[in-house]
């Protein structure tokens, strides 16, 4: 009887600790969000979105940084998206069982978890040194390299979900495989591919390390992609560690904006995929 009691108590204790562990995880998410809201909302005003980053001690906003982040993220997806989409298509359609695909899948998984600062160093060595100066383009390439493995992985997974029968039907009508892929498989996997792109945007829009020595930063407005460009993460990094209160306030507001955007994007991506899966099941 005593043994049974001990087993029961152990069970309760272990399950209680599991619940506690989950509560700890949720607590940290809550704590971070609360910190951002408390410190960030004070600085959110129209000025934040209409003025440039100021010199220490005077007022200003984050317009050039927000603009730069949007431009570089968009460029990164424009470069990494098509390549990732095609590579994912190869893995799911043409090279499903080939030996090369096994290697590529493995390499892609490694790239997926490679430290982003390594990618930054690579782009510095490959682009910045060769061009002779920092540039928004180099930053965008670094972001593209980080986005690509995400897109490759989700594209392959989503294309694999398309029923073989649909592909067979298209082939039976005499369509070549490119026609089947572009006219049948892509439309069927549309929401899944979109989710992959959204997740990739969420992943790269907060990346700081790879931009530190590729895009650098810029105190002023610049729309020249071959020149250094301001961006939110690096501005947050520099302003947060500065001794000036107005810079620190801007850093908190920037942090709030970037975190909320990324969390919303991540949630939207999940809703998109669950909506489409619900539709498929029903």
């Amino acid at each position, binding site marked *: 009887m005593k043994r049974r009691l001990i087993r029961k108590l*152990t*069970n309760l204790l272990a399950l209680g*600790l*599991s619940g*506690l*562990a*989950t509560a*700890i*995880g*949720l607590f*940290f*998410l809550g704590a*971070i969000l609360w910190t951002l809201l408390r410190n960030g909302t004070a600085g959110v005003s129209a000025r934040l979105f209409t003025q440039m980053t100021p010199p220490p001690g005077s007022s200003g906003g984050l317009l050039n940084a927000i603009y730069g982040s949007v431009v570089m993220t968009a460029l990164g997806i424009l470069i990494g998206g*098509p*390549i990732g989409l*095609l*590579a994912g*298509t*190869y*893995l799911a359609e*043409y090279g499903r069982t080939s030996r*090369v695909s096994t290697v*590529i899948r*493995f*390499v892609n998984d*490694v*790239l997926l*978890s*490679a*430290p*982003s*600062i*390594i990618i930054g*160093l*690579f782009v*510095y*060595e490959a682009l910045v040194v060769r061009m002779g100066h920092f540039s928004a383009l180099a930053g965008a390439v670094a972001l593209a390299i980080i986005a690509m493995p995400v897109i*490759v992985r989700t594209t392959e997974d989503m294309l694999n979900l398309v029923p073989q029968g649909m592909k067979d039907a298209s082939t039976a009508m*005499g369509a*070549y*495989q*490119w*026609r089947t*892929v572009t006219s049948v498989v892509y439309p069927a996997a549309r929401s899944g591919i979109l989710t992959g792109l959204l997740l990739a945007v*969420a*992943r790269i829009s*907060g*990346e*700081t*390390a790879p931009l*530190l020595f590729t895009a650098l930063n810029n105190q002023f407005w610049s729309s020249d992609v071959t020149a250094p460009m301001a961006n939110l993460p690096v501005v*947050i990094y520099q302003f*947060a560690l500065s001794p000036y209160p107005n810079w620190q306030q801007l*850093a*908190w507001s920037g942090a709030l904006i*970037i*975190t909320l955007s990324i*969390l919303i994007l*991540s*949630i939207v991506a999940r809703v998109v995929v669950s909506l489409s899966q619900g539709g498929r099941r029903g």
Partner: protein
Amino acid sequence: MSTVAAIDPRHAAGQRLRERLFRSATLLAAILVLALLGGVAISLLAGAWPAVAHFKLSFLTREIWNPVTDQFGALAPVYGTLVTSLLALILATPVSLGVAVFLTEIAPVWLKRPVGVAIELLAAVPSIIYGIWGLFVLAPILQRHVQPWLIEWLGPLPFIGRLFQGPPYGIGVLTASFVLAVMVIPFISAVMRDVFETVPDVLKESAYGLGATTWEVIWQVVVPYARTGVIGGIMLGLGRALGETMAVTFVIGNAHRIGSSLLAPGTTISASIASEFAEAVGDLYTSALVALGALLFLITFSVIAAARWMLRRLERRALSSV
């Protein structure tokens, strides 16, 4: 229309050409992914070469890091990288296991998805946000409430006491490990959750049938069955922790020395690169930082490769058993 396509030879030739073009384009993109990893390795080695040629093996064994006299050794950042990551794993693994157990075995169905998504969102929060949160919120709390306690109670102990001595700086190795632990929890628990779900219900039900408690089923059936995946998940978390940059840069103090105390400031490979690279003057300085990057690449590559290999093997087993 398709009958016309079948008859018209010019149309068929066009189709074949497009087929070949599309196929080549996808293959090319796939090869590009492959080439990218090679390119990263080659460019890092090339950039690291001047420092490696200059310092030879002493680069790995010396603690000195002096940009003024151009003397560089990787020991302190390598030590900091390994210590913070291991400590983070020690803190994060039990919590992640708990989260995974809660999500797969305990939580009612309606709670599974929202809680699961919330934990996943923890992984979506950018590294730099963890950095400012760690520096401005966590570090002061640790400095005021946790570290004095550690110093008072653990400091006098033999052996492990040395890890908890010195003044409570707030920032330092321990704080960095703490932030890293929070950051890797979602990664490890997501992998654990996924592998726990591959455990066949029949196995669990037989254990329940024999009268096992929920915890006994988890610890004696689920975890052993999913062992490879659990280890793979932990190593994936290790890979994350090793390369994590911005969060660590904020809270570790960026001191190029090996302190015996966990409360002392230190540095990691990624933090050194992030905080010094843009200001590095002189070819040897830059090259030494790239050499650090190459070291980090080697370390993380082996850890991630091992983790992915384990998880792939498990995936294949799950597929073949279906």
